């Protein structure tokens, strides 16, 4: 069986790189139509699409970094052009994740209170517009890497001026940046673990008489942990990309992160549990299977992360 790292990451990147740009257009289109029609339901659909796009932007960025490491020494490829593309993509990624995060909070609020606060939906839409503009520029710069004939001037920049290089410099050389980020990463994982344990146990039949909506009140705390770990995780990845891009456990970790992210969305949007305000709802087989998948995915994420130095080669 071929290892997960032996996939052609360049091709996966060429496939995934369309997700942030085209996905933003779709999400923006839905939100725009929803605003014009004053359709609250459609707004939520737009936010759901936005959240899914924000998740997929993570592997889109990471496969790009992997492709860079493979391509950088090839003749006819300008490493500076790739670095510039990568740096703009990192900004785009950051905007996209903030848009997705705020969008998720709006979705959760709509679930909890019946409708999302206007300000949150508007903020999320605004962030998405910025993310789209930055991503479109990144996509344009990405095209210049292989198609200089299209007229892109190859940038002349000192490699130390790039954001990724600056982050990497701090992460590697500062005595406290890496340990502090790891500590936050562990605190964040504990918070997420605890919250999802409570919610999944409720689905599996523990705390049976408690209304699901009450347990679900905890979910933003789980998302807070997830957010902290996305930030610190990206600091590790941008800081030392070569530790991760050809590491099998790291790829599995990203795969299971996508599963866990989809589960976050599922927990926010599924309806029947929410109709229950008296604690009468009992989960069916599918809901219970989802709860098991969620807990398995989180244990797998932790396993892959902790095994990075042993099965992979980090540190």
């Amino acid at each position, binding site marked *: 069986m071929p290892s997960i790292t032996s996939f052609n990451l360049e091709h996966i990147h060429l496939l995934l790189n369309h997700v942030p740009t085209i996905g933003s257009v779709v999400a923006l289109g839905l939100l725009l139509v929803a605003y014009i029609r004053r359709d609250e339901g459609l707004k939520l659909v737009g936010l759901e699409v936005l959240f899914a796009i924000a998740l997929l932007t993570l592997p889109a960025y990471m496969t790009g970094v992997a492709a860079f490491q493979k391509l950088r020494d090839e003749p006819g490829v300008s490493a500076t052009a790739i670095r510039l593309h990568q740096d703009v993509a990192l900004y785009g990624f950051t905007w996209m994740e903030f848009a997705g995060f705020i969008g998720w909070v709006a979705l959760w609020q709509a679930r909890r209170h019946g409708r999302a606060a206007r300000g949150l939906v508007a903020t999320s839409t605004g962030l998405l517009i910025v993310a789209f503009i930055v991503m479109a520029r990144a996509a344009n710069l990405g095209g210049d890497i292989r198609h200089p004939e299209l007229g892109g001037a190859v940038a002349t920049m000192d490699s130390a001026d790039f954001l990724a290089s600056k982050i990497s410099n701090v992460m590697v050389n500062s005595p406290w940046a890496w340990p502090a980020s790891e*500590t936050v990463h562990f*605190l964040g994982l*504990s918070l997420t673990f605890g919250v999802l344990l409570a919610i999944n146990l409720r689905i599996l039949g*523990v*705390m049976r008489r408690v209304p699901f909506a009450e347990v679900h009140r*905890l979910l933003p705390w789980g998302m807070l942990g997830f957010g902290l770990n996305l930030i610190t995780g990206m600091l590790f990845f941008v800081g030392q990309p070569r530790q991760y891009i050809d590491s099998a456990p790291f790829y599995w970790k990203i795969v299971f992160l996508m599963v866990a992210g989809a589960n976050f969305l599922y927990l926010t949007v599924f309806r029947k549990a929410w109709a229950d305000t008296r604690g009468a709802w009992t989960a069916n087989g599918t809901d219970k299977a989802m709860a098991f998948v969620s807990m398995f995915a989180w244990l797998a994420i932790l396993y892959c992360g902790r*095994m990075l130095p042993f099965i992979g080669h980090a540190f």
Partner: protein
Amino acid sequence: MAFLNWLESLSLSVWVHEGTSIWAQPTVMTLHTMGMGVLVGASWVLDLRLLGISRGIPLSSFRWVFRAVAISLAVNVVTGVLLFMARATLWGTAFPFLIKILLVVASAATLLPIRNYVLQSDPEHREVSSRAKMLALLSIATWAAAITAGRLLAYTVAG
């Protein structure tokens, strides 16, 4: 020191420390981290409830937390002892390690009065006493400090 040397020379300790098997140190460490996630996470969820988050859940519905804590604490005591044995002379003489252990003990100790409070709570009564709130804050802080101290051991002692 003689005891620590003896502990470290046991074949089990040597296996954990030097074994090339994935089941040696890598798995013991991973289980220790998983136990940490469940132990601290479950404690924090209850602490958040005591502080007023998801007030709609009756305190008496949180009994599962103590079972989750008992199981994960057992896992972490066993894996923790194994990790200690593997490098007994290192950990046994390191001051930061002592701090971590004291913080873990202090955090676990906050759970005892919290457990009494939860088990004796009236299912209809939703207000939480200010003493229980203080305990919840203390519990959140000591667990966070314990994780911090534990993570930094990799840099201060074993680095």
